Structures are given as C-alpha cells and as structure tokens.
C-alpha cells in the first residue's frame, strides 16, 4: 500500500516539477552514466587468442631445476666422515685418531660424563622429540628451566630458547627491525646475522671491520639526514649488530667504544656471543663481563648452543620487555618444533659446570689460546695468522693469494689434507661465497680447546709447518 502511494506521489511530483528541474536531473543521470562507462576504456592489454597463448606456453623453455650441477669431485660432495664421537681426538677412518682442531667445543664440555648423563636422564623421561612447537604443548619443564637458568646466568630478566643456532640469530633480528628501520652492522658479521639482516627488510649499513671511527662517520651522516626529515627520523628505529668475537676473523669487537656510540646516537645494541658464551670474562659470562659493562647497556645478547654448550639450538637474553616479544614474533621460535628436551637438559648441566668451575676452565682455555697463538704466529711466512690471542677461533690465511678464490681454497685444502696425515684434523672455513655480503678471504679455521697440552700444540705446529712446506714451495 504505502510503497504504491509513494511511487504515485513521486510520479506526481515529477510531473509538477519545472523543466529546469528535469534538465538538471537529466544532466546528473548523464554524469552517472559517464562515470560508469569512463572506466571501461579499452585497455591497452593485447588480447591473445587461445592458440597464441598455447604457442607461447609451448615456446617457453625453463631453466633446469639445477642449472649447473656440481662435479662429482666437488669438495663439498666429498666431506670427511667422523666415526664415533667428535671429541678431542676424532676418528676420520684413516686408522689412527687425529687431534681435533676444527670443531667448536672450546671447553670440551660435551665429553664430560655428567653432561651426557643429564641428557640420558632426560631421554628416559621425555623421549627424543617434543612433537610440537612451543605454543602447542612443545614446552617442557626442561625448556622453562633452561630459559630461567640462562637469564640468571647473564643477569638478565628473561631468556628465550630456539631449536637451531642459525635460526636463533636469523629470527631474533627481524623480530624487532622492520622495513624503514636502519641496522648498522660490521662488514664481517657471520652468515646467520646477514640472513637476519636480509629478512628484516631494513636498510643495512655496513661499517668497516671493527672500525669505530667509520661507524661514527656513518652515524653522523645519518644525523644530518635526520635533521632534514625529523618526522621520518622519529619513526626510524636504529640498531647495531656486532659479534663479540667474529667467527670470520677471530677478532674481538671494541665493545666499550660501541656502547658509547650506542648511548650517543640512541642505537639498540644486539651482540652475537656464540663464541664467547662461557669463554670470556671474570665469570665467563661473555664480552660484557670481560669489559665490565652492565647488562642494561646492551639490548639483547644472542648465542648458539653449538659451541661451548656442545648441544644444538640457541638463545637470546635481555629484559623482559625486549625478549618476551620474540615469543610471538620470533618466526623460528613460533613456527618450529621446540628443542628436543634432552639437548636442553645437557645445556643445563653445562651451565651448572660453568657456574662452579667456569673461571678456572676459562683461564685454562685462555692459556692454551695464547700458546697456540704464539705457536701459529711462528709458522712459515707463507701464511699469516688472524685473530686475537685469547680468541679460541683463529684463521690461517695465505700471505700471497693466487687471486682466485677457488685456487686459494684448493691450496688450503691440500694443507689440511697433509696436516691430517701428520695427525691433526683442521677445516677450511666453509663459505658460500656467492651468498656472503663480503666473502671473507679463504682460510683454515683453527679452534683451540682447553685440554690442549704443550706437546699437542707443538705437534700441531710441526704438522702445520710440514704441511705448508709440502704444499707451497
């Protein structure tokens, strides 16, 4: 009823309206029509017939999945096999066991029976896998305990545990730094950090290796830019990512100077302590301990558990405000199954040991590192040594490079092979040179451990000397 009346009413109104009104309405309707049709401009897209489409598809020849398959004799396809435990001496299937100067267990804690026993006890209780991510029943009491212990060990509020060392570092950085932010990083940072920087989509500014002045120059440049656009600067977070001892060079970072710059330029400082966890400082708490820098000066410490802790996984420690964020935003934390409990249990035991005998063990390690350093620096001057004397990681590089990476690596590999015959196991540092931001020069990475004796060091020296003389005329 009512609708009919309304239609009738409006029709009446239309009839009564003056011609100027009708004209206006007409123009409006035309406008509407024009608005709708204007979008339907013939697009520039060329329409192809079905046949042309099929031809194009048939024509397309994609690259093979693997464009340049590696040769069968590629060194990466012929890696050495270790029989049994990777300990102080390892069995490479050549008959006699050789002295291990290639793996990263600096304090040899993985060989301690109590660590193994802790892992076994946990295996008896929890089995091997955790069968779920941390969010979905993959958190065991062991994980919680280890996180608490790590936080307490570093005098921090909170720790977070990851199940793989590489993913720890590569997930922690992009959890905070997003696109639009700036990260200052040393040009020699290790590959996991580089991947973290890449994943963050932030602007990456590399400063020269351990060059604080260069860093300050870059920061000053940024200050000038910031003054021009204060609005943008107020939304740009700035980070600094360094390693305590660089895996790629064996050198320690100048932390006190970096902390000063952090304060001055309002950066957030992330340190990768993979090598120094348990091997540096009065209470072997790492580089902050070594330089007596309070934890509040550093925003986050990240480290893998694949060095001194002799297990698998990694962790980050810091304030609750910073670290808790990773439980929802650390991709490697949220979307991965948790660390097998027994691997976490062995780390708890390692922390027990570090807390009770840490300083003594560390002192022993430093002595050995220095002795090894002295020995290696007296090697024939066909090679040069890189790395600090107390660093457990040292690099031997060719003094005269052939200019071609592959050839340098081949020479080094020959030296390693020879040295193995003389009784020591070494490794040529493995790099993906086409993926690295700044590929470090080829090197033999020598690692020290605390149980090296004087005889072993001189044996290593003699073996290397002999091997170098054999290979390089």
């Amino acid at each position, binding site marked *: 009823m009512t609708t009919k009346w309304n239609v009738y009413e409006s029709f009446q109104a239309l009839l009564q309206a003056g011609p100027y009104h009708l004209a206006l309405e007409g123009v409006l309707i035309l406008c509407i029509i024009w608005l709708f049709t204007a979008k339907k401009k013939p697009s520039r897209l060329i329409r*192809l017939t079905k046949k042309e489409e099929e031809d194009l598809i048939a024509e*397309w020849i*994609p690259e093979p*999945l*693997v464009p340049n*398959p590696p040769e*069968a004799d590629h060194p*990466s*396809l012929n890696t050495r*096999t*270790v029989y049994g435990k*990777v300990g102080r001496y390892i069995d490479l299937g050549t008959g006699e066991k050789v002295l291990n100067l290639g*793996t*990263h*267990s600096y304090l040899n804690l993985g060989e301690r029976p109590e660590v*193994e026993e802790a892992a*076994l006890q946990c*295996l008896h209780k*929890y*089995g*091997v*896998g955790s069968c779920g991510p941390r*969010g*979905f*029943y*993959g*958190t*065991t009491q062991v994980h919680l305990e280890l996180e608490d212990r790590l936080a307490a060990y570093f005098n921090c509020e909170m720790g977070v545990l990851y*199940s793989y*060392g*590489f*993913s720890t570092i590569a997930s922690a950085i992009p959890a905070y730094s997003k696109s639009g932010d700036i990260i200052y990083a040393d040009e020699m940072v*290790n590959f996991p950090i580089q*991947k973290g920087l890449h*994943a963050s989509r932030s602007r990456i500014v590399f400063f020269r290796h351990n060059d604080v002045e260069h860093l300050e120059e870059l920061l000053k440049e940024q200050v000038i830019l910031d003054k021009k656009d204060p609005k943008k600067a*107020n*939304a*740009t*977070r*700035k980070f600094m990512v360094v390693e305590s001892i660089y895996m790629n060079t064996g050198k320690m970072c100048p932390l006190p100077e970096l902390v000063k710059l952090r304060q001055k330029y309002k950066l*957030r400082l992330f340190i990768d302590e993979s090598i120094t966890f348990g091997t540096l400082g009065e209470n072997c708490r790492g580089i902050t301990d070594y330089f007596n820098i309070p934890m*509040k*000066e550093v925003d986050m410490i990240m480290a893998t558990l694949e*060095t001194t802790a002799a*297990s*698998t996984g990694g962790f980050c420690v810091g*304030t609750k*405000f*910073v670290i808790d964020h990773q439980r929802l*935003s650390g991709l490697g934390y949220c*979307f*991965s*199954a948790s660390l097998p409990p027994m*691997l976490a249990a*062995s780390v708890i035991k390692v922390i027990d040991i570090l807390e009770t005998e840490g300083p003594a063990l560390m002192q022993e390690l430093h002595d050995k590192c220095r002795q090894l350093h002295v020995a290696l620096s007296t090697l024939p001057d066909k090679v040069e040594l890189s790395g600090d004397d107390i660093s457990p990681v040292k690099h031997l590089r060719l003094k005269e490079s052939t200019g071609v990476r592959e050839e340098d690596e081949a020479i080094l590999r020959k030296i390693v092979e020879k040295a193995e015959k003389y009784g020591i*196991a070494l490794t040529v540092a493995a*790099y*993906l040179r086409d*993926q690295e931001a700044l590929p470090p020069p080829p090197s033999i*990475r020598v690692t020290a451990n605390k149980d090296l004796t004087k005889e072993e060091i001189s044996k290593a020296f003699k073996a290397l000397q002999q091997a170098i003389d054999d290979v390089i005329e």
Partner: protein
Amino acid sequence: MVAHTELPAQVPNEKILNQDQIARCSDAKSFGHARPDIEDAVYVQNGAAIPIQNGGKVIPVADGKPERKARHHKEEECSLFVAFFTFVSYGVLLLVGYIKEFFNPPSTKEKNREGYVPLYIGFESFYTRNVYRRIQDCWNRAICSVPGAYIDLLERYSPDYGWTMKLTGKVIKCINVGSYNYLGFAENVGQCHDDSEKALKQHGISSCSPRLELGTGTLHRQLETLVSEFLGVEDAITFGMGYATNVLNLPSLLGPGCLVLSDEFNHASLILGLRLSGATVKVFRHNDSEDLERKLREAIILGHPRTRRPWKKAMIVVEGIYSMEGTICDLPNFIRIKKKYKTYLYVDEAHSIGALGPNGGGVVDYYGVDPKEVDIQMGTFTKSFGAAGGYIAGSKELINHLRVHSHAQTYGVSMSPPVAQQIITAMSTIMGRNGNDEGRRRILQLSRNVKYFRQRLRQKGFIVYGHDDSPVVPMILYLIPKISMFVRELTKRGVAGVGVGFPATRITGGRMRFCLSAAHTKEMLDKILEEVDEVGHLCSAHYSSIPKSKEPIEW
C-alpha cells in the same frame, strides 16, 4: 572456505552434502572428476582406483585394491549471523581495550632507553595486550612428560589477569590431542629410546661443526640413505631443524627472475624462504588447482611483470597436509599442471610424511604417484618420527646441488646423533625392517582412528574441516571466547587440545584442532568425543546445519 572442485550439478543450492551424499558423489565422480583436460592420467573411475599411467609406464596404485581417496567437498560456510557475532565479539574486545588504555595507558615503558624511538608500535602490541593476554593460558602450556597418548600438564595460574603465568606445582593428566605425534613414536620406552641411548653413548650429543666441516658422522650418512630408500628417490639430504630446511634451502633453489606459485595457507617457513630467495611469488587459493592453473598460465604468457622477459623457471610450492586446515593437497592435479606448464613441484610433507599413505610415505604414497613426479620432496622428522630436523629428497643432481649450496650445510650445525638414530629406528620400523609389523600396525591404527573420529565428530553436529583421511582435525568454533572456553573446559575434563584463532586463521575461522595419533585407542577417542560433545553443548558449538544419519559408526 575454498572448494577444490565444484560439486556435481545435480545438487544445486546445497552448501554441503551430508556424509552419505559425499560418499556417493565421490564414488560416482571422484576427485579430479571427469575433467576434460586430464591428459595422461585418469585416476579413479566408478569408485575403483585404476593404475596411473605415467609415460607408458604403469604404476599400480598401492596394493591394487580399490581405495577411496580424499573427498574434496565444499567446507560448510560461516552463516552471516555467526560471522556478524564473531566480528562483534572482536569489536567488543578491542573497544574495551581502547577504553581501558585511554584511561589507563599501558605502563610497559622501557627502562634506560629514554628518548628512543619505541621498539614496538602499532596495532600488533595492542592486540597482544588486550586480546591475546586474556586467553594466554590456552597456549604455551608446559608439560612434564613424553608427549604421547597421555600428557602431564603443569597447572598454571595468573595472579594478574593474564599478564604473567605462574606454575602451581600441580600436574594434570590429559589425553593428548595437541602434539603432532601421528605414529606414536614419542616414547620413552621401546626400541627407539634404546637405540637413541646407545647412539648418544657412542656418538656424543653434538658435533659442534657444520656438515661441510667436521660435522658429518656415520649416522648422518646412514640416515640419508634410509630416507632416500623410504621415499623411493635417488638421494636425500637432512638438516638439524625442520623450519630451517625450508628457510635455508629455498634460496639456493630459486632466485630473482623465478616464478613461484604458492598456496595461500603455506607455512611461515615456506613464505620466509621464498621471500629470502628473491623470486616473484604469486599466491593461489587454497588447494585450488583451477585458480593455480589460471594464474600460472597468465604469468607464463605475460612473463616477468617488470622486465617482460620469460621466467627463468617456475615452481609450485604446496604442502602435503595443511596443519591448520586439515586438507590433503590435490597432488594429482598439481602434477598434471606441473607437466603441462613445465614447472617444478615442491611438496612440503611436514605433516603428511608417515601419517598418510598405506606405507606411511606421505601424500605421494597416498595417491600412489611416482615419487619422481614430485621434483622436490621436503619433510620434517618432528612429527611422525618423534624426533627433530628435516629432509629434502629428489634427484641426485638436486641433492648434490644442495650439498654444495645449502645454507644449513655450510653454516648450521649437523643433526645431533641420538636424534638421527631415533629417526633411523622409527623409519626402519615403518618400513618393516625391524622384523615385525609394528610399523604397519601403527599406520593402520592411525588411519582407522582418523576415519572414526572425524565421522563421529561430524555426526555430533560439529563443523569439521579437511579431508576424511587427514589426521589433523580442525573443528570450527568461530568466536574467540568459545575457543578459550573449549580449551579450558577440555583440560578440566582431561583432554589437551589446541585452540587457534586470529591471526593464525582468518577472523571467522577460530577453531579447535585435534591431532590424532596411532597411540590413541578407541576408548580414548570415545572419551574425547564425549567431552567435546558436552562442552559443545555448554557453549552451543554444534554449528553444522546439515542433516546427520543416526547410524552408528564403527571404528
């Protein structure tokens, strides 16, 4: 939800078919139903599986007996009424949050960082503070036992409305339908455990070295040979972490100028790996091979959108079973498309390996296709094998390429020996090499459990997503308060399940997820069903509106 194939025309206007109808339809027409353009493979006719022809070679479908494969049917859609209230429910939560923060701004200020640009900005932290915080207790629960058929939860309480959680010291024993323990290998007794113990004593805990340096042990070599035999491929490579397997290997396979077609519900690790690779990624609708074909066709014809050059190569990236949806990927159609358009196929079998197929060989085994048809098979050892780590399997050339170029091989530590041993023992058990039929028993138990549980749950009137053979069983609840209520109530009644809501799902996709296991018995499933039904009545979660047959369902 996105349907994989449209329903046959004879059932117009029907959103969903009931159990019997689904059965009939899928029998008559089957998946990949009478597609005119299927070229070289007709997979199922009249309900009986026939051999798949592959370039003249005939591969018999798993032990030849007629088998009903995945039923692709439309998921029951969310009614407007429910969708409205779901949005209202989020709206109320956010509104309360805004009011609260207006009067009482968040006090979580950073110490010692005055004058800094705030570390967190935006909606994400607001959502965490006001929505996630209230239901935080449903996640990250700590356990103190093997994640087997039963699980010991550590009871927690919150003294401050969810900001912090504290343990009370009490332990709650629950039936575990939250862990990915599909074949029940998460055990602290038995052969797996004994072998791992031996491996730990013999090989130590960790090599502390990457595979390319001094991290390759005898167990790693043994494991890789076994994986390649298990999957029927030329070679395999293994890594210490499943997530890292995707993230650290996709960049060595793809690069700028490559095209990737990725399923919209792919796992975060695949998405990150693809992003790091620099390839152009196009997303197609979940498990929808038609949408995939349309997008792939267009992309190949038009070439790279910026340079207009042809793509270097194209790859389709899918998962075997989707962990949140419970869907089984439509592999035969993906293989058909892959061949037609000369692309490569990457299947992430993280959830399907072990849990699907008559031999536990994942989705490839389930459809009985030739493993060589899938260029790259990836999977993890975390789920069905009760261990940790991941693998990539394929041609010798591919694996050699990865051995040289994979990031994880060069920079990541090698797999821990006892973990590797657990996988070796579990895998040999599945393959029947340990001199018993334990593996077969587990596979059978799981598949019967899955069929029984899914059908019973549907019969009770819940909306259950995914395929009938998928051990991941998502049950739709829509509203976030219902998710938390379900998780809490079920825990009280001795069932530990997982609730998932926004942002892990879409806003109207809140759900409970049950992961079934071969360790569950029929009695446990009955108990779970009973409790779920009861809680469902408490919060009226029986959303399904299709008629149900009353016929009892046999285990």
